[in-house]
């Protein structure tokens, strides 16, 4: 075979480059536990209102006994329920979201809260909101908190652009 020595060297460099990047991802996954949100948990999207967790009066933010903050959200065309939630910054939080109809996406600007909301499954994101990040892009409120939009970021029909809510982030 006629592979030039220069190409051989470049081959080695390329493989090293790819290896280093792969190892970096493995390292962050293992050591820092950084994973994209996965949560194989089935739910019947046509009966959300009949489940204990996603019935309307249980939506919103709850502080559980062990101190974790859990926000429950239902995405349904073309609204986010509840329309506004308040979350503390720099505190571990859990977002649990379900769709009542089609595929939606849930994204809170300036945070790592980003997941598809797939009918039939409960999406779960565990994260911590950094106050400086949201303060840099959000709207400041008189009480010192900051409001950022929460939008549907997956095309879900002709009203998709209007499907959004707000998250008020308070200082810890």
């Amino acid at each position, binding site marked *: 075979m006629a592979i030039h020595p220069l190409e051989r060297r470049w081959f080695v460099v390329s493989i090293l480059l790819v290896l280093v990047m*792969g190892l970096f991802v493995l390292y962050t996954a293992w050591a820092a536990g950084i994973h994209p949100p996965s949560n194989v948990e089935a739910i019947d999207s046509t009966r959300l209102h009949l489940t204990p967790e996603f019935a309307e009066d249980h939506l919103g933010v709850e502080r559980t006994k062990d101190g974790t903050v859990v926000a429950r959200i239902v995405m349904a065309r073309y609204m986010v329920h509840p329309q506004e939630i308040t979350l503390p910054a720099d505190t571990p939080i859990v977002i649990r979201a379900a769709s009542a109809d089609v595929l939606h996406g849930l994204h809170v600007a300036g945070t790592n809260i980003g997941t598809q909301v797939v009918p039939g499954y409960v999406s779960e994101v565990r994260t911590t909101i950094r106050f400086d990040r949201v303060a840099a892009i959000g709207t400041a409120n008189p009480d010192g908190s900051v409001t950022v939009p929460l939008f549907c970021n997956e095309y879900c029909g002709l009203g998709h652009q*209007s499907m959004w809510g707000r998250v008020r982030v308070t200082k810890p």
Partner: protein
Amino acid sequence: MSDTAAPRDGLSGVRGLALAHMWVGFALFAVASLLGVYQLFERDHVVRISAELYYQSTTLHGVVQAFVLTTFFIAGFGYAITAASLRRPIRRKGLAWLGFWTMLVGSLVAAVSIAAGKATVLYTFYPPMVAHWTFYVGAALLLVGSLAWTAITIAETVSWKRENPGRPVPLAQFGMTANAILWAWTLVGVVVEVVFQLLPLSLGLTPTIDVGLARALFSWTLHPIVYFWLIPAYVVLYSIVPRAAGGYLFSDEVGRIAFVMLLVISLPIGLHHVFVDPEQAAGWKLMHALGTFMVALPTLLTGFTIAASLETAGRLRGGKGLFGWIGRLPWNEPVALGGILALVALLPGGFGGLVNASYAMDVMVHNTAWITAHFHLILGGTVVTAYFAGAYALWPKLTGRRLSSRGLANAQLWMWFVGLLVLTVPWHWQGLLGMPRRVAYMPYDPAIVDRWTKWNPPMIVGGALMGLSSLLFVWVLFRTHGNPERETDPALHLSETVEPVVHVPAPLNGFAVWNWLLVVLMAASWAYPIGQFFSMTVHKALAWGFR
């Protein structure tokens, strides 16, 4: 290096076939590009028609650019490459024309369905949102019709090898065969989804759909399809551009290795399209993420070998010193210019791809304008620019007329390239600032929206430049047919290496081993992500329209 002139070239036998395919692709491409310009206008309120029209237009634009342009170009270009590189006309022309008409009818049915407002589901048509059944029938016909090209390409290679034992399949044909095999594998996912899930759902034969399964099947297709678009661009870069630039291909074997890698690595990694979905476990995503990095390898190799080939051209033309050869490249030769620009666009495009692949970073950019910017850069910048170069190389050979205007062709290429950069640089930035993609307008808080929209004006200028460029492209090709100046040399000369390639090892001259390897890899990477839906509790979803 000298070819003994004419009839040892099969191109004359595929003229009509190649031109018909490519003309359909390019004509619809120009229309779709103008729709893209309208979308920019609507989003920046230069015009305000309606959100409905925006999504309808984006659906048609996406479907045409991603599925129709590419499939038609690849089939037409593929027939030309097969005939030119094997130096004989293709057999089974009846089948090829049947494929063409099937694809054309399918594309038109789908386009009419979208234009009539019955299928505003975007080019990804994610269930449980359903379009009118005509949309899926059209899509299915387009895909099934393309199988004619797939079968013919593979059959031509097989019969040529039988008649020429021991001789290496020409690199260009080797690449197109890799692409045909890749396409057959790629189609499995989306065809199963359309035929067994979406068509019955849209016809009301089944009331519900397993969304998780549909998403897994679609991601089976969604990654390798990008490489189906890319391989012909690489064939242009390996087999047409070095010669057009006046140089030699630096290495034939590296090209073969790259094509094999693209085939084998791009298929088992599609799960990265559902990185932020709940229904796939993190471990499987991680596995596909690691594979996603490996698919950078063939592109890194290609970048190096093509750059080195261009360097041989620059030096043969008298370029000296470390960079002196760059200035000596034939910048006024459209085929070479297109190749150079396609190669340059690969740098920022490839970098963006690595960010998306980065598992953790992906969440930040997922479904933001970053993604749209990234695939316009790769698709418009590398893939379509290489298609331009391929067309500029082929048109004189297929029509027997010289290119109507090299000056306009060069202007067109530069306009496209500059327009693309001006369009996508701000788009990337908006994405990093969190601007969502696929929105007709942005009714959110001004504090955040204003940070994004201040980048809109350059975007519009860039998009408009590209729109003009696409019209100019079609104009140059159209005028070539009537050019009184005849092309004196009817043969398409493919790039050659300095030393002729007399022998290559069997695995770099055929695909049997690689297909077996794929059987194993596909089973390992997809059996569970797809199979899980048959063993776990699944709540199927109801069908919804898009209103």
